[in-house]
């Protein structure tokens, strides 16, 4: 019939300009790569896919109206997931009301506790899980090697708060004392005081739970003041390509976590890496490129599994089946979340390496961190 020839349209918005443009552009690229690939094959349900992507100008309110525009005016067949967490938090209830499956990073744990049934973190960017892997690895060390005193600096926003969750939970478990535990508001004017204080208090573990800009300032201050803790953990700033590209050697040895990594052995990762290598000359795909791709994988498997574009059917299929993504197999619970994942990463020689757990590890972690040059 006619409808079957028409491409499947997938709509929504991304912050293509403004504050969050950098990340959004990678997500967009990941999504587009997925479409390219699926269109080169037989398409989705035998139909081509096309994107209708609006620019919400890094404004969560606009993200909401554009989601509605996609749903009610463009009458898209599928909704794609947005970024950042605040936008996802605002769009999730809208998707719910319109009964549209919404696969995205989510807005950390709190957003999945609101009882939405159409939202999936597939895979999610879950601050609460971010340091799980790092702590597991610490736990695997002999007690005397572990750091004892931590300095924690956290940006005061949803992602920062959710990062604190694992720190609070697991430091106590390992007997690590949070000697300094401070939040700061963005923009951070100066990181020098962070380091002066951490150094004075003899902290041997530094958490810098911030974005790129503030993360960089913290690291640079640490180098300038020659502060050498056993390990530096950097939340989400270090997972974008700019970290190694711009910071160079100074960016080495920071730990972080992830739910998705270009060196994971799951099928598909190699393909993405090859593509990114060729197109952007990067050693591996950037995290958000992977996210963009993986969310589409989840959504499309839901569609194929349900063999329908009926949103409720897609949802129900996703809730009762396993999807295979580049982040591994995902089984969603009633909240729309998969099992917690806990990989630990470390930047080594300008590459983000997987360092824990052992079964996925690509390199041994460098610990304690070598002194600044």
């Amino acid at each position, binding site marked *: 019939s006619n409808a079957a020839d028409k491409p499947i349209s997938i709509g929504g918005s991304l912050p*293509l300009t403004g504050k969050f443009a950098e990340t959004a552009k990678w997500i967009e690229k990941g999504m587009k790569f997925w479409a390219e690939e699926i269109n080169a094959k037989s398409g989705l349900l035998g139909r081509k896919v096309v994107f209708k992507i609006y620019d919400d100008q890094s404004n*969560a309110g606009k993200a909401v109206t554009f989601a509605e525009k996609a749903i*009610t*005016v463009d009458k898209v067949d599928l909704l794609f997931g947005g970024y950042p967490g605040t936008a996802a938090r*605002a769009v999730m*209830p809208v998707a719910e009301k319109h009964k549209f499956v919404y696969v995205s990073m989510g807005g950390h744990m709190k957003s999945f506790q*609101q009882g939405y049934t159409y939202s999936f973190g597939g895979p999610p960017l879950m601050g609460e899980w971010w340091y799980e892997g790092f702590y597991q690895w610490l736990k695997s060390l002999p007690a005397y090697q572990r750091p004892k005193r931590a300095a924690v600096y956290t940006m005061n*926003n949803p992602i920062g708060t959710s990062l604190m969750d694992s720190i609070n939970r697991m430091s106590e478990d390992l007997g690590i004392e949070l000697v300094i535990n401070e939040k700061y*508001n963005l923009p951070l004017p100066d990181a020098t005081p962070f380091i002066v204080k951490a150094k004075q208090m003899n902290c041997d573990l530094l958490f810098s739970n911030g974005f790129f800009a503030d993360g960089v300032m913290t690291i640079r201050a640490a180098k300038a003041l020659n502060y050498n803790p056993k390990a530096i953990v950097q939340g989400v700033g270090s997972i974008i390509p700019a970290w190694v590209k711009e910071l160079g050697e100074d960016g080495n040895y920071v730990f972080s976590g992830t739910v998705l990594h270009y060196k994971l052995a799951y099928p598909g990762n190699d393909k993405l890496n090859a593509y990114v290598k060729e197109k952007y000359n990067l050693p591996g795909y950037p995290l958000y490129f992977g996210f963009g791709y993986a969310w589409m994988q989840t959504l499309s498997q839901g569609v194929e599994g349900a063999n329908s574009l009926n949103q409720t059917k897609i949802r129900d299929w996703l809730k009762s089946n396993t999807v295979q993504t580049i982040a591994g197999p995902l089984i969603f619970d009633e909240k729309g979340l998969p099992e917690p994942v806990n990989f630990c990463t470390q930047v080594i020689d300008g590459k983000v390496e997987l360092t824990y757990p052992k079964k996925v590890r690509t390199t041994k972690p460098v610990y304690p961190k070598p002194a600044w040059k």
Partner: protein
Amino acid sequence: MVTPDSKSRRLVFWVLVLFIALAVFPWLGIPVYFVSLLFTVFLYVILATSWNIIGGFAGYLSFGHVAFFGIGAYTTAMMINGFDLSPLLTIVSSIPAGVVSALIAVIVGYPCLKLRGPYFAVITLCFAFVVDLGVKNLDILGGPEGLWLKSMDLPIDIIRAIFFEVMMLIMIFSIALGIWTSNSKFGAGLRAIKEDEEVAQTIAINAPKLKIEAFALSAFFPGMAGGVYAYYLTYIHTDIVFDMMISILIVLMALFGGGGTWLGPVIGAVVLTLINEGLSTFVRAEFARIVYGCLFIGVIIFMPNGIIEFFKRAKGVPPG
């Protein structure tokens, strides 16, 4: 022959027709997006029109007006969550939001309105940051996490339609306030203050009092609108309702249309909101933004005193 009286009667007639048409709009089965879009337009009309009372008429450029919007949003959210109010009481429960905003405006205005020109602009800017950061830092107000509100147990188009009507009502009141101001003793006093505050005082205008009244009035409707917006969004966060860009946009909208007239901000808000939205169909987001930027330049080069003034001149009506 058209007597001025029959002319104004005809105007009233068309305005009524317009409002009735708008009122039935969301019930016609039109895609919800358009309802939401108009809702946003109303929101900005309210913000720009209210800002105009202090900024346009009195010449006190408040760059922190988003604070009142946000305060309204948070007041409502706290009220709903605290007293477990039904979201159906939107309009009723947004009134206290407006009152709280206006009260805060009085308290803040008292010291701040002693400042003039750029100094006032910046102190209000600081005020908006202080409120924003204060809310972020206080966990009882949701802190960095923001607040979730209960959403109504109704189909989405009904929900959107309800918010639409409520926002429209607030808009009508705020425009009425604008019209009243431009024709009243109150507005005349504000104009004198804008021109020369010292002279205004020597003709017995109680400038400090008048300014505070204007500031409070201009905070009231944004507060209410913030309350409704909180319901509409069901999730609020300081980054959303205290967004500095809203502050700047309000100012630009009012001035772009023509500050100091009641119609200018309405036109500015409608035009800028719709154009910005229309540009979203551009393939490449950067180009859309560049066109948007050119719009500001183009319009002001040809109409340096705003759109309204330009058309008034063209029609030969003396300004003012």
